[in-house]
């Protein structure tokens, strides 16, 4: 379906900051999250996880566990139907379900420390824990590898013994840990470097970060004897949970109804399944509802952190600061299965710049770590760390202001993107100018202090969306959405419906409906919801208006073409329309039962036309030269939102992305021991920023409307985490006069750089 619209620029309600419809439940503790549901006869499910980084499972004996009083079901790999790599996929599943199935429960080998190998359902947590201790697994421990560069070396332990690198011509004959190779190429790289007056080259490394959502994964599954099942869980996409679970368990989609609870953060980490198929199986075997929750250490060890990376990049530029060439090698590990976001990352790193000659080599590598999941702008922050650091080096060598250097190379409408197509309306130049002109840039840093600047990009996407707008007889409106609300999207949908319907915001409420109530909705992710669900909400609202116009026309006995919708009323229009009193939205709603029945609008769309969002960040910080500790003093995030529907939550996305990025830059990391065991699976030693670590985070919302949305909306959630690694690194590097090339830039690492030791 092709939606017809022209992008609006003046608004009555959109752009205001009313309280969110789900807010009161959230400030009173009433809102129900994944672990908050309880049912009669509910069992507790727990997972036994591999203590080894890499080990063959020779045998699993569950007899002692099954015999323990209170244990109602035990499942292992033998209970999972085999899905071949060509397994038929039901519904919309982006991920390779075969890999997801093997990640959910180990088959022949445990591929990382924390990989699930068995699960039990019991009458209490204590019994379930005891039962796990009674499961006997016979292991053959294998050599392991957790580092991306080590994993690529010939002779490295093979995570999958039969994996041949895809994308190489000719295909290699020997298996390796390189799952896929992609080359991104444009122009003439040799000529590009030949034209350069200055060339900079460095190798960069970033350690894996975790999304760090505060709510651990949780679900309740209930399966009846007839095979019909219900699942309640915290997820970014209950439709895709349904589709993945049904695939893994061989169920019909109609037999599984999934309800998304309130969700306590996701950032990409709740776009796949971990516990859900296991809970459904345990429920099927026990005949009772089963609740499963991850402990925090399970979240770190066995959900989906992001990739660690190793990147070598070289950029050339002319004396006047024009980038002439970039070649780079991006090496990302995606954990124990293929699918690291390496090529997205590579593209996003260079996308802000008009560079005619590019070669980007991308390696998707497997290692003995948990399977990477999406994390906010997957792959982009690491690539931008490398590219934006090198741009700062060029700015330094050429003595050009770093914002000015970026302005000289910034893509604009009509520029070719590094990934091919020509950019439409984008706001990168506007963001750079807003950053340059912002008053916070006037304050000059002092001793041991410095400022860092970096840009970021994310393309955003649309996707399948289904929304219903129901009009009640009292004139209030209920919007049913299928995209879980993580950061306030219900408020934005209510604003857009109220804007279209020209009724007060307070008269509109929104809920997240379950998978039985709406058509398919893609997952909340990729910064798509305000754009796509917004588009569908607007479309559904317009259908409500169409129906209201039809009702009024019928009532007045005139053609529907002779009525117009104007300021929340249906009015007759034109010479022959007669002299009828306008009917308000409320009046038509009240007459609905006697004029044809309920009034509802719905839209089932595949939203296209997502608009890319660019950002520019400015970080001021101070380094303690004797300890290497960093204090962030000021931070400014400028980003193009297209149109901010609810500015509080747009600012909140910018500020939240900045905080996560600062954490990743300074302290967050996965630390593995030589045994391949994660050493810091908790919030004590996986150090996400606390309130006292951060300053206020200043924001500027740039609004260059996206022509692909009736209100000009661009997604905003991903881009804010792209620039901070480089913004912080550029500031630290200036403060200590040494280039920092690794994250996290922890105090020991910074002090080592200051002292010149390795």
């Amino acid at each position: 379906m092709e939606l017809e619209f022209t992008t609006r620029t003046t608004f009555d309600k959109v752009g205001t900051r009313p309280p969110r419809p789900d807010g009161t439940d959230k400030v009173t503790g009433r809102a129900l999250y994944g672990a908050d549901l309880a049912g009669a006869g509910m069992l507790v499910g727990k997972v036994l996880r591999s203590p080894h980084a890499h080990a063959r499972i020779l045998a699993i004996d569950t007899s002692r566990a099954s015999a323990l009083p209170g244990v109602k079901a035990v499942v292992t790999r033998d209970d999972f139907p085999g899905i071949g790599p060509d397994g038929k996929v039901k519904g919309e599943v982006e991920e390779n379900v075969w890999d997801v199935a093997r990640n959910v429960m180990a088959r022949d080998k445990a591929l990382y420390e924390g990989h699930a190998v068995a699960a039990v359902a019991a009458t209490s947590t204590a019994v379930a824990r005891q039962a796990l201790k009674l499961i006997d697994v016979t292991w053959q421990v294998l050599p392991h590898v957790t580092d991306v560069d080590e994993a690529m070396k010939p002779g490295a332990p093979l995570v999958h013994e039969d994996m041949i690198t895809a994308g190489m011509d000719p295909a290699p004959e020997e298996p390796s840990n390189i799952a896929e190779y992609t080359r991104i190429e444009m122009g003439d790289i040799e000529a590009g470097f030949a034209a350069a007056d200055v060339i900079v080259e460095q190798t960069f490394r970033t350690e894996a970060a975790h999304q760090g959502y505060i709510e651990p994964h949780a679900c309740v599954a209930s399966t009846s004897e007839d095979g019909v099942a219900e699942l309640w869980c915290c997820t970014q996409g209950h439709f895709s949970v349904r589709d993945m679970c049904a695939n893994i368990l061989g169920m019909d989609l109609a037999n599984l109804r999934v309800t998304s609870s309130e969700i306590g953060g996701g950032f990409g980490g709740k776009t796949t399944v971990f516990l859900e198929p296991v809970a459904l199986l345990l429920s099927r075997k026990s005949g009772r509802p089963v609740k499963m929750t991850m402990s925090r250490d399970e979240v770190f060890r066995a959900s989906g952190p992001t990739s660690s990376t190793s990147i070598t990049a070289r950029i050339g530029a002319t004396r006047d600061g024009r980038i002439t060439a970039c070649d780079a090698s991006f090496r990302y590990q995606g954990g124990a299965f293929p699918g690291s976001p390496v090529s997205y990352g590579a593209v996003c790193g260079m996308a802000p710049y008009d560079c005619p000659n590019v070669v980007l080599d991308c390696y998707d590598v497997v290692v003995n770590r948990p399977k990477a999941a999406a994390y906010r702008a997957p792959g982009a922050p690491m690539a931008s760390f490398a590219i934006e650091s090198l741009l700062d080096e060029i700015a330094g060598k050429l003595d050009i202001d770093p914002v000015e250097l970026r302005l000289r190379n910034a893509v604009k409408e009509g520029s070719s993107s590094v990934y091919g197509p020509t950019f439409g309306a984008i706001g990168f130049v506007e963001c750079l100018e807003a950053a340059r002109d912002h008053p916070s840039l006037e304050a000059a840093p002092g001793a041991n202090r410095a400022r860092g600047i970096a840009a970021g990009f994310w393309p955003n996407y649309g996707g399948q969306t289904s929304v219903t707008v129901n009009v009640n007889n009292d004139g209030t409106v209920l919007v049913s959405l299928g995209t879980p609300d993580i950061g306030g999207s219900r408020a934005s949908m209510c604003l857009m419906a109220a804007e279209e319907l020209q009724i007060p915001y307070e008269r509109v409420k929104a809920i997240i409906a379950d998978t039985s109530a709406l058509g398919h909705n893609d997952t909340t992710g990729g910064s798509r919801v305000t754009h796509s669900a917004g588009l569908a909400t607007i479309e559904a609202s317009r259908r409500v208006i169409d129906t209201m116009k039809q009702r009024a026309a019928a009532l007045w006995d005139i053609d529907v073409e002779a009525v117009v919708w104007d300021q929340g009323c249906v009015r007759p229009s034109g010479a022959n329309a007669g002299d009828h009193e306008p009917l308000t939205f409320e009046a038509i709603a009240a007459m609905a039962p006697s004029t044809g029945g309920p009034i509802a609008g719905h839209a089932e769309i595949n939203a296209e036309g997502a608009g890319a969002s660019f950002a520019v960040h400015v970080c001021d910080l101070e380094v303690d030269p004797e300890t290497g500790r960093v204090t962030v003093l000021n931070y400014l995030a400028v980003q193009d939102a297209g149109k901010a529907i609810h500015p509080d939550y747009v600012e909140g996305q910018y500020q939240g992305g900045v905080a996560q990025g600062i954490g990743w830059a300074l302290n967050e990391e996965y630390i593995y021991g030589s045994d391949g065991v994660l050493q810091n699976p908790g919030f004590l030693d996986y150090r996400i920023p606390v309130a006292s670590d951060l300053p206020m985070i200043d924001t500027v919302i740039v609004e260059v409307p996206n022509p692909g949305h009736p209100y000009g909306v661009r997604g905003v959630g991903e881009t804010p985490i792209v620039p901070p690694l480089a913004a912080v690194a550029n500031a630290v590097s200036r403060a200590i006069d040494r280039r920092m090339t690794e994250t996290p830039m922890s105090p020991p690492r910074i002090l080592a750089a200051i002292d010149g030791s390795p």
Partner: protein
Amino acid sequence: MIDVRLGATLRSMAGGRQSFPVEAGTVGQVLERLQGAYPELSAVLDRGVAVSIDGRIYRDSLLQRVPDGAEVYLMPRVAGG
């Protein structure tokens, strides 16, 4: 005639050729006719692609019209966090 180009991330998968002319009126026809006419694109098409038409990216819109002379790129499908 529509000149379909490969986005940068896909070029290495198709033996270096970058431009593939086809007669087509919709995205669905574009993909179907590419499949028939250019066996070297099978690896690209099998992995699933998005299609950029004049800078706007379409992921699953086989029915989308493609104007004659439009800038058309095949792209990898991107989701996000």
